């Protein structure tokens, strides 16, 4: 798979303990194949989540808040605690018609929690990032 090789070619290898020829433990940067597989599975899942959210926003099913939450790898509970807004309200704000009527004070709180500007929060990128 290309994704596995690609995400591991970032020039940031981690250290692993392996035994050398004298059975002494030394630090090495060779990772195990299983790590590639599971990290690739998780990264591709995150990417798919973001892309799904973006499509749903464009189709008018979800509010842009949903997309920005996916980008930051959060879930509703996480975002609710980060923004200091109750979970049921965050869930309501995922609906586009309710999100459109939000006061700027609420939007600001989401903007701080997600580290985007309030203008960015109302839009999603047109093409896949």
């Amino acid at each position, binding site marked *: 798979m290309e994704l596995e090789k690609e995400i591991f070619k970032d020039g940031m290898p981690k*250290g*692993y303990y392996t035994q050398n020829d004298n059975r002494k433990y030394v630090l090495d940067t060779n990772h195990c194949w299983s790590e590639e597989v599971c990290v690739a*599975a998780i990264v591709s899942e995150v990417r798919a989540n973001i892309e799904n959210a973006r499509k749903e926003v464009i189709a008018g099913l979800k509010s842009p808040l949903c997309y920005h939450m996916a980008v930051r790898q959060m879930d509703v509970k996480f975002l609710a605690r980060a923004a200091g807004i109750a979970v049921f309200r965050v869930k309501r704000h995922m609906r586009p018609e309710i999100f459109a009527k939000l006061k700027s004070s609420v939007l600001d709180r989401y903007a701080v929690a997600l*580290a985007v500007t309030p203008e960015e929060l109302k839009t999603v990128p047109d093409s896949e990032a």
Partner: protein
Amino acid sequence: MTTELAANGKPFVHNHGAHCETAVTSALFRYQGLDISEPMIFGIGSGIFFGYLPSVKLVHLQVTAFRNRPGTVFRKAAQRLGANLVIKTYRDPQKGMNELRQVLKAGHIVGLATNLYWLPYVSERHRHNFGGHNIIALREIEGGFRISDPTFGDPVDCSAEGLERARFVPGPMNPRGFMYYTKSINPHPDLRRACIKGMKNSCGLMLRIPLPIFGVRGMRFLAKRIVKSEVKLGFQEACRHLAGTVRWVEETGTGGAGFRYMYAAFIQEASELFGSEDLVRLSRDMTAIGDTWREFSVMSARIIKKRNRPEATFANAGGLILKCADLEEAFFRDLQKVVKKLKA
């Protein structure tokens, strides 16, 4: 290994490490003149552990911990080695950053807890919301800080805004600006006594916690869950959970096989310190346990990749964890007996 200068011009040697917390602790001690390796800190601080937390979820996936809670390894190691530390958290980000600058100017190097997602220099595969990634700030540079992140090979630059965000990100994964530095340190600590304390503590943690989710009991609990997961959750979902588990075994800075190789390295070093044949044998046993964990992760990867090997099933993967649990129970019971014979 690269040499960097701290704020007062004292050289700091950046060593590549496997795990953030132990590597940062050993780097802080080495900077103060106590040459101690990363596995040694891991063993003395009783880092090895197992816990499966089904109710705690990090972005839809359960937490499987192979080491003690963040912060404890470093605290225990410091206590057992007789180091005098300053540990601080902050509510106000501005105050936290100002104090960091002051402490750096005073010539200390500072350990910081940060949220891994928000560190500007990490790449996509390391990015997830985890609020206990430890780094060292070396000195202030123009517009940011010089950072030594021992998980990665070389020191890096980090912008001030990025670091502030990573230290004070709102939400459940907020490190609250956790920072620590050494005030003074015992240059000739009693390593043998510290090792014995660490080993005894580890045995207790692995064998004696009367809850089904910690220690060897936790492993058996996880094994049962994995065996049942295919029927209970469906193949796709079960694979997701399995990938999450394997990530905790191999990826999250464990030094391979869920810290088991690192602990074997510690026992090996301790065997030289004590000159004990028993510890040499135990180090070999620990390596065998590590190999079994690795076998589990490789088998899980085969399941996830659908390699159509007849032996790669959820039942077998669970069976391997059960085998690990039996091996580890025997190992720690053995260690308990050996430690009693060691002389401080």
